[in-house]
């Protein structure tokens, strides 16, 4: 494994969720996405009632569902389209389409997963319209699983401590925007929207191995891009 010369800076200054070289590696087995387990539980009764009422044509019930998920859906469409106007349109169209086709929602999956699938499709349509030459997201692509990371360095203090919130949000938005859409969307669904691997595969029309392969590559690429900002010793 290659490391940039002079990149080592001793042990990491641990922030809350990082490893401490002094204390071994036991903490790492807590899943990196701690919210994931919680998100995969069955929908609460309140949501089931809202969905049932909305199915019966109750706009207020559907609006309650909109209020619950609009921020996440907008973040999703924003990350996929990388364009605010397209993201707004895609969000709106996704909710409208969901309302229109609510009768087809059987309750076999979470309402949120079903909504995400619709929103992804709407966002992809916008993306393809603007960037017709981008690779199709539901197309199986070869990924090199022997990909070896570069620039392995200690990040030092917590990025949240080093950057103001706005600045950090800008960095995250920039680096995720640099990812190819096929990787970006898998990372978005799996690690930000907290869908399971199977739900992500279903939402994107991909196989589970394809999701896993793209997720690994996306995580490694993002790590490498963030390394530019977070590695220890860079000027602030």
């Amino acid at each position, binding site marked *: 494994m290659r490391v940039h010369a002079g990149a080592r800076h001793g042990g990491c200054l641990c922030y809350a969720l990082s490893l401490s070289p002094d204390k071994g590696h036991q903490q790492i087995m807590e899943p990196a996405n701690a919210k994931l387990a919680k998100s995969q539980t069955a929908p609460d009764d309140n949501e089931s009632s809202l969905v049932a009422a909305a199915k019966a044509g109750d706009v207020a019930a559907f*609006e309650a569902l909109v209020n619950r998920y609009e921020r996440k859906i907008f973040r999703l469409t924003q990350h996929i389209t990388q364009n605010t106007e397209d993201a707004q349109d895609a969000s709106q169209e996704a909710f409208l389409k969901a309302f229109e086709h609510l009768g087809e929602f059987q309750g076999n999956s979470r309402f949120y997963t079903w909504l995400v699938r619709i929103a992804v499709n709407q966002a992809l349509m916008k993306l393809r319209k603007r960037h017709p030459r981008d690779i199709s997201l539901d197309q199986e692509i070869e990924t090199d699983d022997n990909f070896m990371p570069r620039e392995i360095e200690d990040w030092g203090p917590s*990025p949240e401590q080093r950057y103001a919130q706005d600045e950090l949000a800008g960095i995250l938005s920039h680096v995720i925007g640099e990812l190819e859409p096929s990787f970006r969307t898998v990372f978005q669904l799996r*690690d930000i929207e907290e869908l399971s691997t199977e739900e992500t595969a279903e939402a994107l029309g991909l196989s589970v191995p394809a999701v896993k392969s793209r997720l690994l590559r996306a995580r490694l690429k993002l790590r490498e891009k963030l390394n530019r900002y977070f590695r220890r010793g860079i000027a602030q």
Partner: protein
Amino acid sequence: MNCRSVVRELSNYLDGELDLNLQQSIEVHMEHCEDCHLLVDTTKKTIQIFCNSEPLPLSDDVRSRLHDALVKRLHKPRT
């Protein structure tokens, strides 16, 4: 266990999806390999920092348009 195997299993390791033997092999390897230790640590931080990022609110204008469109759609026959 070598560095290439750690990279290959990185996602499964971080997601807690490995069997105990493989998980322990990676941990033993990391005790002696600072590169892999740093790779796992910074990849975990990468996921967490995105996971902790705030969702974005829709603008009032879009919310208002959505509401109007929903009400309008109610008066149309459902597909």
